[in-house]
């Protein structure tokens, strides 16, 4: 096995990194019709770090995450999670979909959504006991939503919906957290609450990967950055990778001088 991999890549040290990586994607290609949304992308996520996936609209950020999880069927490519097939590691993964992907008029309460994070553990017929409820309640408290437990989800604001999704992910007690645009359409206070929870997870040794849009907060929030524009552009620590060259190359030179200037103090300072 290892020999085969080594001949494939010719670099056994890199293979070792891949094998221990919480999320390693190789040769991933996903296409809608005949147009590839993600083309032959490799990604190796560093354990215990917060990684931002950034790139312009339609660059395949969400698609890459979904394909890695098997939500979309890739044309080619493999995903390993902690060195094993993703299918065997489901209980170590927590995925937070885009808020807009579900119908918030669905007849369910906040606490019920968080309890969904415990469904794999409960199985088909396991009863929801008070220990499960108090765990769900504790997860809601971590995102500051404990008073909303019995509200209908349709009554929540966008930021509150996002925090409920995050609470559900916390209930899963995973080692790898994958978030699809967790800051989309939320106010500054919510963004701060969410980033604090994510940093706590990172400090507890968990790995966090988030699709991110706001270039001005990348350096402040994340340790590592992964640039994508259908193809992989660059990957590495924010300090060395989040620079003008990579930004211009990911965004196809569409960032104006003023926008670049706005980013500069953040990553040089």
């Amino acid at each position, binding site marked *: 096995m290892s020999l085969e991999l080594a001949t494939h890549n010719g670099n056994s040290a890199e293979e070792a990194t891949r094998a221990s990586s919480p999320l390693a994607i190789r040769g991933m290609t996903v296409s809608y019709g005949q147009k590839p949304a993600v083309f032959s992308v490799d990604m190796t996520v560093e354990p215990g770090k917060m990684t931002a996936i950034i790139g312009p609209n339609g660059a395949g950020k969400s698609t890459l995450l*979904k394909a890695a*999880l*098997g*939500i979309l069927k890739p044309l080619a490519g493999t995903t390993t999670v902690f060195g094993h097939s993703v*299918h065997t590691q*489901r*209980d170590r*993964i*927590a*995925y937070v*979909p885009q808020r807009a*992907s*579900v*119908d918030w008029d*669905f*007849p*369910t*309460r906040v606490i*019920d*959504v968080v309890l*969904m994070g415990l*469904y*794999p553990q*409960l199985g*088909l*017929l396991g009863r929801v006991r008070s220990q499960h409820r108090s765990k769900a309640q504790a997860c809601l408290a971590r995102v*500051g939503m404990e*008073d*909303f437990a019995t*509200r*209908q989800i*349709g*009554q929540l*604001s966008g930021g*509150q919906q996002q925090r409920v999704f995050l609470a*559900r992910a916390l209930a*899963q007690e995973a080692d790898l957290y*994958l978030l699809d645009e967790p800051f989309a359409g939320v106010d500054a*206070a919510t963004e701060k609450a969410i980033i604090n929870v994510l940093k706590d997870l990172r400090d507890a040794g968990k790995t966090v990967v988030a699709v991110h849009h706001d270039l001005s907060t990348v350096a402040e929030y994340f340790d590592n950055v992964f640039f994508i524009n259908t193809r992989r552009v660059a990957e590495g620590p924010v300090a060395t990778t989040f620079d003008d060259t990579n930004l211009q190359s990911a965004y196809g030179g569409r960032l104006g001088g003023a926008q670049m200037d706005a980013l500069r103090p953040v990553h040089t300072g």
Partner: protein
Amino acid sequence: MITDALLLQLGYNATLVTLGAALLGMAAGVGGTFLFLRKRALVSDAISHATLPGVALAFMVMVALGGDGRNLVGLLSGAALSAAAGLLVVSWLSTRTRLAEDAAIGSVLSVFFGFGIVLLTVIQTMSAGRQAGLEGFLLGSTAGMLRADALVIAFSAAATLALVLILRRPLTLASFDPDFATSTGQNVTRTDLAMMGLVLAVTVVGLKIVGLILIVALLIIPPVTARFWTDRTDRVVLISGLVGGVSAYVGASMSAALPDMPTGPIIVLVGFALFVVSLLLAPGRGVVSAVLRHRAYQRQVHLRQGLLALAHGQPIYERMTLRLLRRQGWALPDGVATPDGRGRATRALRDETRWQVIRSDPGFEAAAALYDGLTPIETVLTPDQIVEVDSRIMARSEVSA
């Protein structure tokens, strides 16, 4: 006669049929809930109409083989096969071609149903096989149902109901958030397939009782009715099963009591009556309660705005506001506050100031979400919190002074 039927006094066979129908109604209500939540209610219409050619072909095959063309298990097997074929065509058309699902449903429904009608016409010209009774599959008929048939229906309905209840968690997850479901390792395609299989089972089992034209109503009316009463998935499932069970029970017993009365339409009408009652009278989501709530809210808004105007010494221009204030005894006809009105105006102003503090502090987020500018503050905050808010108001006014 009808009371006899409702009280299961019409003899063993009729009782069995009625109970079988009730079980079927429950299975349809519970299964239909997930169809409704998954927003695929109309697929069941394609499934049910696609049963007709299967029924007709099964009849022809059984007659050709020299048997009794009306064997229920044989007919239902034919129905299941052609319904499954219809379902496959719908899902193939909507996933593999550019046709949207509604167009696929429309084409499959009409083509299969038309083909079935042609086959029925052919059967009517056949001399053999005692074809009378096949039309019963269109609108449902419990008259003259055999004991064995009733047992088949009752057992299949019970088994379907049990299966839906066992699968309720994956079904809920696939309906609410299929991407998350997949990320936890659930095979959503398989869950959808299971849901369609269950709907197919309900449809086929219900053919004899409700008929293929109206079975879709038994799958859709109960969950839609239940949705008026609750915001919780488990309760929607429960109430929907109840509505389906009651509709089918009443419909089947009335059809057994009254000769020549088709079962399906009665079941649907009973379900519809429950729907109308819920639409109008359900607390919270019902129409009447919404109108009343709106009126009460409007009165509250006018009173509060009037009080704040009084507190600021502003004139009241709106006649409705003045009328309401006068009726409460808070203002005189010329818009001047009564002593009682002055006290209330001061309190309204104080609450308004408190609300401003609450809304500006994320620590009060849950309370602020309830904010409508009208709720008595004591119902949202504890006395301790009110004291804290007041002390902040004091501090603020000292700073500004």
